[in-house]
């Protein structure tokens, strides 16, 4: 027998301290965490981390911070299960475990010089925020930039200050599924805003993130406007325990979402998304 250390380091988190907690809306919180020195790899927009809460468990959460400010790790989390519920209750000074980044990034470079169309639904805006940060600071690199965001109602608009009067106002449009008269904006589903009148789909690259139903309908609306499936990208969500392609849980047809995803071209996954309970 020999004692081998370092046999499983890939699955050991680094301890990290919460610096800031911001409530976005009901049960949705953004945490800013000090980046541990041992996490040496910088994240790319679209990638995710595994976040661990002491004694509760570990889940995959997309990066939603600024890709140029890598000293802080930022995640927007919605309380839907026991780990995410514990995460949103963390306060500044509390500790958590982090490992990552994992997964495929949004193909932002592929969109350079072209029309970039970003379509987000609900909390699906969070994994796209790093893209919006990066693109906003280099607008000239793209021919045009459009952001279409659909959410449930005016009280659940993520990063609301970025839209009205904020840096995304000039290229972003919001629509909600329903509203009362206090709301001045659009009401209707996100695909209502995918129209030839407002989007230039020629030489365009589209990035879509949100519930699977919303991504399927949005991608198909873009295809109806003449876009090719391989120029449309979606971000997938599956159960994950290891994030290093060994627990087998995140399989989606032939793909491991932790390695082949979360970002995949619609052409790659279109057929699979149509299979119920895959």
């Amino acid at each position, binding site marked *: 027998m020999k004692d081998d250390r370092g046999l499983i380091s890939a699955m050991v988190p680094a301890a990290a301290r919460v610096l800031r907690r911001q409530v976005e809306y009901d049960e949705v919180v953004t945490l800013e965490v000090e980046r541990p020195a041992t996490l040496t790899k910088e994240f790319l927009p679209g990638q995710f981390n595994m976040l661990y809460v002491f004694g509760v468990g570990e889940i995959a959460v997309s990066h939603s911070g600024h890709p140029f400010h890598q000293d802080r790790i930022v995640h927007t989390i919605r309380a839907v299960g026991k780990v995410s519920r514990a995460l949103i209750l963390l306060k500044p000074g509390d500790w958590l475990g982090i490992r990552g980044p994992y997964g495929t990034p949004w193909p932002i470079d592929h969109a350079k010089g072209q029309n970039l169309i970003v379509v987000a639904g609900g909390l699906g805006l969070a994994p796209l925020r790093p893209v919006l940060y990066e693109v906003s600071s280099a607008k000239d690199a793209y021919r045009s930039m459009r952001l279409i965001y659909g959410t*449930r109602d005016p009280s659940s608009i993520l990063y609301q200050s970025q839209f009205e009067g904020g840096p995304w106002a000039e290229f972003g449009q919001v629509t909600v599924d329903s509203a009362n008269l206090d709301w001045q904006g659009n009401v209707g589903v996100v695909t209502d805003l995918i129209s030839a009148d407002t989007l230039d789909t020629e030489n365009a690259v589209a990035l879509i993130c949100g519930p699977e139903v919303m991504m399927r309908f949005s991608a198909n609306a873009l295809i109806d406007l003449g876009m090719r499936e391989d120029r449309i990208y979606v971000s997938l969500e599956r159960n994950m325990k290891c994030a290093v392609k060994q627990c087998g849980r995140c399989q989606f047809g032939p793909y491991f979402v932790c390695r082949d995803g979360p970002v995949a071209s619609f052409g790659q996954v279109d057929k699979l998304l149509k299979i119920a309970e895959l």
Partner: protein
Amino acid sequence: MRTLTDLIVEQGLLKELDPSKIETISGCGKNAVFEAGAYIQKEGDPADHFYLVRAGKASLETFIPGRGNVIFKTLSEGDLVGVSWLVPPYRSSFDARALEECRAIEFDANCLRQHCEADHDLGYALLMKFVPVILDRMRSARLQILDVYGPDGDG
């Protein structure tokens, strides 16, 4: 000065109809303006008119006690207000209201129904313009019912 025919052609929905049909349709139309907050149609009223929005913003909504007026669709330039005029009992299903000053072309439904009855080609051409709008609204309604961003959705 632009004629009503010109205005119809400027709106996406009907512009591809052939000129003689647009001429016929425009005979049933006139300009209308709704002040912000004014009702364009009310739930349960006879569907005597329908509208093509030229400028401004309107809503489709319903009143829910305790929640007030709930908007489920906003409409703007080029959008259609009212499809209930097409088939009996010609009764409006929901409230439509101007959210801001709204300019529209108002069509006399009775006039148009008579033209369609007399000229089935026109009727068919018009249905081919209206059915996609109806399908689109139905699809949207189903997605809204699914509440995909809600607590039980996956978003």
